[in-house]
């Protein structure tokens, strides 16, 4: 075994690509949960995004239009969920699970004529000057547009939730919808918007999977990524920055263990396969328990239906 056989610049670059679907989907779910709604349908919205993005990408020949379609498809599916839990006030856990099952089935049906087709390519964008830096340039500054946008989105969500008035309102709705309601905030409307945003982000995450990371459509291709995104939200303590760190650790260990196997490291492979999950949980628990920021951040009304009292 020879550690020098591992190309670390490529390793970091590919861990970012591997983590991006998780970052996108988990970030959307974070906003949804901050508004007090638990949507377990992330997996379903991702796969609908993956298949819709792929179909539109192939038909139009543009991966970017495909990405937009993925966002719209994820948002549309999430509207169904929003209608059921906000208007019909159905149980959020059951409805979310149903959404996942529904999404997986519908995606298989939609994608049937599209197996065995190549997706349009998405160009990588080298950032001027920075991408020419040795090693660092290849790691961070030679990615596609979606990777950069995902990082901007992490910052944007943080800024929105912690620095903007509307973000504060959204958090208030999630903490105590009755109080928010009595203050005159429109709980249902805000949750509708949050759920739609979450759906669009999950859709883009799925689209990234079928248009960039794999790149092709195959049935069931999300293979549990939506559930990992859900777990990341909880372990990050509902904080966008930690979520990004968590997703990159997860993606990083996943890619690292593949690299270690390929150079022939003698570690029990069951442990190597488990490592991404363990390391992510451990890292995020350590950050959370360091007490730097105090609260754990779970919204007070997470998963509760809102019934108008007045």
């Amino acid at each position, binding site marked *: 075994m020879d550690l020098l*056989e*591992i190309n670390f610049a490529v390793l970091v670059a590919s861990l970012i690509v591997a983590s991006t679907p998780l970052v996108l989907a988990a970030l959307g779910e974070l906003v949804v949960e901050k508004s007090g709604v638990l949507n377990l349908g992330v997996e379903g919205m991702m796969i609908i995004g993956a298949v819709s993005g792929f179909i539109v990408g192939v038909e139009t020949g543009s991966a970017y239009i495909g990405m937009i379609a993925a966002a719209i498809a994820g948002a549309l599916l999430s509207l169904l969920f929003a209608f059921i839990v906000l208007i019909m006030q159905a149980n959020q856990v059951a409805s979310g699970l*149903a959404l996942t099952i529904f999404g997986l089935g519908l995606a*298989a049906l939609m994608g049937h004529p599209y197996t065995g087709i190549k997706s349009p390519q998405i160009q990588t964008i080298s950032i001027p000057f920075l991408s020419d830096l040795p090693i660092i340039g290849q790691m961070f500054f030679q990615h596609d547009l979606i990777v950069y946008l995902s990082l901007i989105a992490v910052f944007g969500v943080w800024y929105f939730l912690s620095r903007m008035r509307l973000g504060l309102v959204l958090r208030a709705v999630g903490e105590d919808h009755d109080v928010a309601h009595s203050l005159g905030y429109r709980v249902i409307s805000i949750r509708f918007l949050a759920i739609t945003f979450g759906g669009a982000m999950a859709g883009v995450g799925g689209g990234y999977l079928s248009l960039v990371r794999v790149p*092709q459509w*195959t049935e069931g291709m999300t293979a549990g990524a939506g559930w990992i995104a859900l777990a990341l939200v909880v372990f990050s303590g509902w904080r966008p920055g930690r979520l990004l760190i968590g997703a990159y650790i997860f993606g990083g260990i996943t890619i690292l263990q593949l690299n270690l196997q390929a150079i*022939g490291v*003698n570690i029990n492979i069951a442990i190597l396969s488990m490592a991404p999950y363990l390391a992510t949980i451990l890292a995020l628990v350590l950050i959370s328990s360091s007490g730097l920021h105090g609260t754990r951040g779970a919204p007070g009304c997470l998963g509760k239906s809102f019934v108008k009292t007045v």
Partner: protein
Amino acid sequence: MNRNVLIAIAGLIAVVLALSIWSSRQDTEVASSDKYKVGFIYIGPPGDHGWNYQHDVGRKAVEEAYGDKVETVFQENVPESADAERVMSQMALAGTDMIFATSFGYMDPVINVAKKFPGVKFEHATGYKTADNVSTYSARFYEGRSVVGHVAGKMTRTNIVGYVASFPIPEVVRGINSAYLAAKKANPYVKFKIIWIFTWYDPAKEADAAKTLISQGADVVLQHVDSSAIMSVAEEKGVYAFGQASDMSAFGPNAHLTAIINGWAPYYVEKVKQGMEGTWKGNQQVFDGIGAGMVIIGDLNDNIPDSVKKEAMAIKDGIASGTLHPFTGPINKQDGSPWLKNGETADVGTLLGMNFYVEGIEGDIPK
């Protein structure tokens, strides 16, 4: 829960059920009693362009061969659990005469259902348990791996061949050994890098593993996992790969050197014929390869030099006619201890239980 909630949930469930029934595309026509009815259960979707796709090709061949005399039904995405028993029992109750169970994990369900329906004939792929109304069949895929191993050894410029493997079972280990021996013979400098991903079907994981191998210098990637993701990655990165179970050239016109294609059709056509004529027997174990057409080598890509094409064809023909065995001594095990003496060939028992690498492969088989 109020009434609205119940209506909403009921509505959603109805939509889901309607779509899933529509999408499972199960043939629900009632069988007329004079037709011979054959059922198939698949572990995944026939749209996978791999393992399940080829079984479905076999099913269609049966329909084509016997036309109005047979009727076939199939069920896709059947888990290897009690669900499999339920699906097969339903098929048997619906008057199915013969059932093909096309994944290893259906073994115990097949045996259980076969006990309950002694009049139904069962054919189980890749298993080892038989009964009076259960026979098994499997293919010598390692023969195909010997051909692609030779091509891989000749085509690599970096002398590093990547291998994405699924589970450490004898079937997969046998494939690695067979490919390695052929590659080593073709190119003494060749080195195998192997990644185990512990799944048959996870396109994203398969793609990640392939990218990792390529980043570590592999310019030919072999796979023993089911999806076509690795072919797409190989095409994108400008390296070579081989189709698994089915021709995958649509995913990588330049990358696709050739494919090991599972040829179940002749076997299925023959077995259904035996069933119709009453000559079908249980307790049979078929293990066929290139010679019988159960393993087919796909078209060779024009990127392969003519001399290498000829050599590959010679290996294929030699295996088909029985003059060449992929495991012919002298072969040592990985630790250097002798396995096969000069000229000795491996016996079926060792092949079916193979749990060791041959000499020259680096790394350990995961426990």
